[in-house]
């Protein structure tokens, strides 16, 4: 495990700037955005990350823009009584002042809708997060394996 972590770290150090990592904009930090490789024919994908707000005013993630999908949305998934429900967050996702919000499998995520060129493991998906206050923050999603439940590569 340690060797893998070290390799990841080494790779990330030498990687081009487009490779996913941590991003900052004002008081916001976006950690390790990632998504999954898509099975052939799949049209949608979920994107995950941790957004931390060190400022003293809340901000709201209102949109995802990406050239790789017809549309990006902000969603919440819930599981109750064994039933999966997914809803678009029309008002966006609040990042509290001095707090953070985790976008992760089974919970909040950004949605890539209408993907024609399915994501492949190891590639990088460019996108822009739009915040109410912080405005546009360009990021890049690392693509992990099909069906993966955790960020493909964690380097802090």
């Amino acid at each position, binding site marked *: 495990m340690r060797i893998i972590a070290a390799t990841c770290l080494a790779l990330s150090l030498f990687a081009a700037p487009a490779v996913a990592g941590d991003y900052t904009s004002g008081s916001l930090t976006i950690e390790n955005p990632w998504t999954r490789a898509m099975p052939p*024919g799949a049209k949608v994908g979920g994107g995950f990350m941790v957004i931390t707000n060190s400022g003293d005013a809340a901000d709201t993630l209102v949109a995802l823009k990406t050239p790789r999908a017809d549309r990006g949305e902000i969603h919440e998934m819930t599981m109750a009584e064994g039933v999966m429900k997914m809803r678009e967050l029309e008002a966006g996702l609040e990042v509290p002042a001095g707090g953070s919000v985790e976008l992760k499998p*089974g919970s909040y*995520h950004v949605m890539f809708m209408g993907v024609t060129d399915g994501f492949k493991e190891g590639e990088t998906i460019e996108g822009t997060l739009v915040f109410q206050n912080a405005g546009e923050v360009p990021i890049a999603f690392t693509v992990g394996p099909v*069906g993966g439940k955790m960020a493909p590569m964690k380097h802090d």
Partner: protein
Amino acid sequence: MRAIRWIAWILVVLVAGTTMAVLVSDDIRDAVLGKPGQGTGIADIGGPFQLVDHTGKPVTEKDFLGKPSAFFFGFTHCPDVCPTTLYEMSTWLDELGPDADKLNVAFVTVDPERDTPELMNNYLSAFGDRITGLSGTPEQVSQIVKEFKVYRRKVEQEDGEYVMDHTANVYLMDAGGKFAGTIAYGEADDIALGKLKRLVAGG
């Protein structure tokens, strides 16, 4: 006398069930209700169906008898639960090794409008070759959804697209087609694998 005893037992089960529903968290309740062989009123799951597999071949419930089966309901326009469950299922099948041949595994679409057999075939190729995709006409899919007491709801979005709410449990059936339990979404790997091993062993 016998009738009274039966009614008393039914009351006990109802009270226990209600108490459990109120007191116990979803996870624990699912784990308890999911155990095979416990009479909980949800055992009446499964029944006759006619569908089309991902190769275009018509199939019925009879094609899934003689071996135990695992059925999972979902749709390919699902970003999260469906691909992760299919992926986990493929890893469990890998761990079962040769015993995986003693099990039928099927991914049944709850979205036949979009999930044609061709699309299912393509999609499932990402998860090995042991998972059968099942689709059919909307009526045929409604039939199996009803037989398995699967919750499914189409939720329209403003842009004309839609998502499907759906039951995320894996349904385990014995070789005779009788309900034998569930694997809940997010259940620990070793527990899920244990359930599949027990199912394959016929216990």
